[in-house]
């Protein structure tokens, strides 16, 4: 069976810029690539006919197939350095917090390699701490418990062959019967390549001269869990000396013996790891493990890692982390100078297999080609990349109210689990996934399959094409970098069907735009919800800490609510004084995925301020049709809430009703659980179409529903939702200012 996957190295391009496409094709000799501009989703019945337009370019060609592999699993590495050479006697020690101690042998630290050379600390098949010296192994014989801190140390005296191993649980407030363990043995061991790279959380398993492999070094035995204050000495230390090395500062009297004295509390936002010893055995981490996580000495007295990094000196490694597949480009495409701004993709096909590698073409920076812009939710698309968890348990069906659905491209996630998961998932050790990268094949960023995010936003593109007014496509990534300047040329900016994830820079830019007369059409539901942080060195990677509450696939551990990339507090914008109702008039109230409903016009729809909106729209019921489960109101819905910031002068012109039992009040609205939380019983659950004016001639229109976009194409755009929305677009695109009501 042929399999094909790929990704683009850039997400947003200006005319004249070049994108490189990385591909992997298995089971065929060649594949075909075409650059396409996407104009509608492949959504089936009720939707417009699927349209993708091939761009004339030499990049459209047949390419030889080759397999490019992905290497998941995070680890730390100190490159081969002089100080690491000639180690004979040694002591290794660290605080460790294993999360899957029973998952089979795993590395903690050292130079040990699967070939049987080097030395290292590890966990054996039973979950016990273990020392390895060449072919020699000695374990504590006592399995460690999951998610408990231990001091693990091992010493080896090359002259006598004496080996000692300590495994000591750290005191905490839990009750357990564990006791410190110390075992001894004799080793006549060889450490043939003791000068090799020193690794944390992985062993070397071979060499592979491939750009996709970090340092041409294959790794295995990836550790799940946390490592804190790792140390390496060139002598077999006694227990008192080991204790001295557990301090945060290098103790006097051991300077000569210490080789590595790593402080993972340094440079938490970066990929660097820092050695405080005179040897400066600095290194880096690979595949973005979680940092800014509580360490062995976290007391609960501090919740913010930036205030006391020493309580956050641990790195949490996972065997399924992946931040960059590091594939090599197969071909490139230079955006023509006259290319239309839009949703583009490299479409890869081979036999029956296909895969889209999306990217966007925006106007040249500082220019605009239209008065209308659609802001593609590239941050949200990235955060959702490779959402696997929704397929792996029946719980999904419980809250969606229907059988889970996938397509052939989704199944690639299970055939190639090394492509990693999304921030909607948990790692293999059950910890929440807090970072997501776009630099890998992404199975749910495509114009087909589940109608969600990217696919739903193509409904809006399809409608814009139908309306026929010029428009530009811009992206979240552009907005984060360029701020308000990106938006200023436009009379109206449309946000997507589900623009859920926003950085502070993005939100401030939108706020400033709206205050300066910009018009905003919020075309979806559950937007402006979670705060995110972009990686400081690589914007393709985004972090989200799911703190406090909200509708969430996992919850951040207590004490870990601050992003590692920026030090900013994570969680809902609602919890940080920026509730979505402030910017858009509406905010998330419920979700359900079995059936969508309709809106009913309110008395406020008769207000002369919104007469433009209802020109030619006479129906009282709006959107009782749609590609997305039969209605315009549904999936995830928002309502006005004046207590949370809906402007006092906002008009709610239509509200949805008649939602099903699966629509439950969002978690952040529930202080005390009770039996009337579903939409059948709870009138609070509704989508509100909302309008209000902003200073300097601006205005905001919000649909409050993800499903809204799916109603636009019904009957060839001849319906009350398309008519109403087009009225808004045309008025918002005019230069004529809106007046704030007196």
């Amino acid at each position, binding site marked *: 069976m042929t399999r094909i996957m790929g990704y683009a190295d850039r997400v947003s391009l200006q005319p004249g810029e070049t994108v490189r496409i990385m591909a992997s094709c298995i089971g065929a000799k060649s594949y075909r690539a075409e650059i396409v501009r996407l104009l509608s989703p492949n959504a089936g019945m009720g939707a417009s006919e699927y349209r993708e337009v091939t761009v004339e370019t030499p990049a459209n060609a047949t390419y030889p197939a080759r397999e490019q592999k992905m290497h998941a699993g995070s680890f730390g590495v100190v490159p081969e350095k002089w100080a690491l050479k000639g180690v004979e006697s040694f002591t290794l020690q660290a605080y460790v917090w294993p999360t899957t101690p029973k998952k089979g042998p795993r590395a903690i630290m050292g130079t040990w390699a699967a070939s049987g050379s080097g030395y290292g600390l590890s966990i054996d098949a039973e979950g016990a701490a273990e020392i390895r010296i060449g072919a020699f192994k000695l374990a504590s014989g006592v399995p460690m418990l999951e998610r408990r801190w231990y001091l693990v140390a091992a010493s080896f005296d090359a002259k006598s062959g004496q080996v000692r191993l300590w495994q000591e649980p750290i005191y905490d407030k839990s009750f357990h019967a564990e006791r410190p363990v110390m075992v001894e043995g004799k080793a006549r061991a060889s450490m043939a390549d003791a000068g090799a790279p020193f690794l944390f959380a992985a062993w070397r398993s071979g060499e592979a001269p491939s750009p996709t492999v970090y340092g041409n070094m294959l790794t295995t035995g990836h550790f799940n869990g946390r490592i804190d204050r790792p140390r390496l000495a060139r002598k077999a230390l006694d227990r008192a000396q080991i204790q001295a090395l557990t301090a945060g500062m290098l103790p006097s009297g051991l300077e000569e013996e210490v080789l590595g004295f790593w402080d993972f509390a340094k440079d938490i936002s970066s990929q660097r790891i820092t050695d405080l010893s005179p040897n400066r055995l600095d290194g880096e981490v690979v595949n973005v493990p979680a940092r800014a996580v509580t360490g062995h000495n976290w007391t609960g007295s501090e919740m913010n890692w930036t205030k006391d990094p020493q309580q956050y000196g641990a790195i949490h490694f996972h065997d399924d982390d992946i931040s960059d597949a590091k594939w090599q480009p197969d071909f490139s495409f230079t955006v023509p100078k006259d290319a239309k701004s839009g949703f583009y993709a490299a479409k890869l096909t081979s036999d029956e297999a296909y895969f889209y590698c999306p990217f966007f073409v925006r106007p040249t920076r500082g220019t605009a080609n239209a008065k209308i812009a659609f802001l593609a939710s590239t941050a949200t698309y990235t955060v959702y990349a490779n959402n696997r968890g929704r397929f792996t348990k029946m719980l999904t069906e419980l809250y969606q109210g229907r059988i889970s659905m996938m397509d052939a491209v989704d199944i690639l996630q299970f055939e190639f689990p090394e492509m990693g998961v999304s921030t909607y998932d948990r790692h293999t050790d059950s910890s929440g996934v807090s970072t997501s990268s776009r630099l890998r094949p992404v199975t749910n960023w495509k114009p087909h399959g589940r109608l969600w995010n990217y696919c739903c936003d193509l409904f809006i593109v399809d409608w814009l094409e139908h309306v026929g007014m010029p428009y530009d496509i811009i992206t979240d990534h552009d907005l984060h970098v360029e701020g308000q300047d990106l938006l200023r040329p436009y009379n109206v900016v449309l946000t997507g069907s589900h623009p859920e994830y926003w950085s502070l820079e993005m939100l401030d830019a939108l706020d400033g735009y709206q205050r300066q007369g910009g018009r905003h059409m919020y075309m979806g539901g559950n937007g402006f919800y979670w705060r995110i942080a972009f990686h400081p060195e690589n914007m393709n990677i985004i972090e989200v800490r799911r703190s406090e509450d909200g509708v969430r696939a996992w919850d951040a551990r207590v004490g870990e609510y601050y992003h590692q990339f920026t030090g900013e507090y994570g969680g809902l914008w609602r919890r940080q004084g920026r509730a979505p109702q402030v910017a858009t008039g509406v905010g998330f109230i419920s979700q359900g995925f079995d059936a969508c409903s309709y809106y009913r016009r309110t008395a406020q729809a008769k207000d002369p301020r919104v007469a433009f909106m209802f020109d030619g729209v006479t129906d009282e019921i709006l959107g009782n049709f749609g*590609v997305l489960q039969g209605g315009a109101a549904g999936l995830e819905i928002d309502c006005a809430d004046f207590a949370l910031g809906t402007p006092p002068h906002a008009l709610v012109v239509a509200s949805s009703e008649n939602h099903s039992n699966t629509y439950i009040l969002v978690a952040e609205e529930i202080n005390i659980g009770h039996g009337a939380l579903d939409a059948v019983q709870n009138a609070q659950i509704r989508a509100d179409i909302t309008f209000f004016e902003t200073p300097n001639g601006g205005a905001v229109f919000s649909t409050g529903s993800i499903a809204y976009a799916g109603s636009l194409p019904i009957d060839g755009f001849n319906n009350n939702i398309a008519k109403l929305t087009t009225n808004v677009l045309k008025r918002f695109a005019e230069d004529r200012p809106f007046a704030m009501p007196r």
Partner: protein
Amino acid sequence: MFKIDPSRLDVAKEFKARPFGEHSPELQYVLNYMRTRQTSQFEVLVMTEPGKRWVLGFMPTGGGVPKLTNQTFDRLEDAEWHVFKLRWKHITGHDLPIE
């Protein structure tokens, strides 16, 4: 704890008539019971033509490649009813005497 009463064919008929949307409390209990069972695998639909055709598959709980069957549907309502009947039989031990 709630258990499915195999004599309540009215509940099954309600589901067949309207698999999506508002359900009676009795039917919602039945669906919640079906969807919260501990099972080694569960039913999924694999879409083979966008919005037009789906194949029934069984997904290992916890992840894995779904095992596809020969059962195909061109309406999601039919797929829901087919799976409802399978689950009813599995849980109650009784076939649903409703086509």
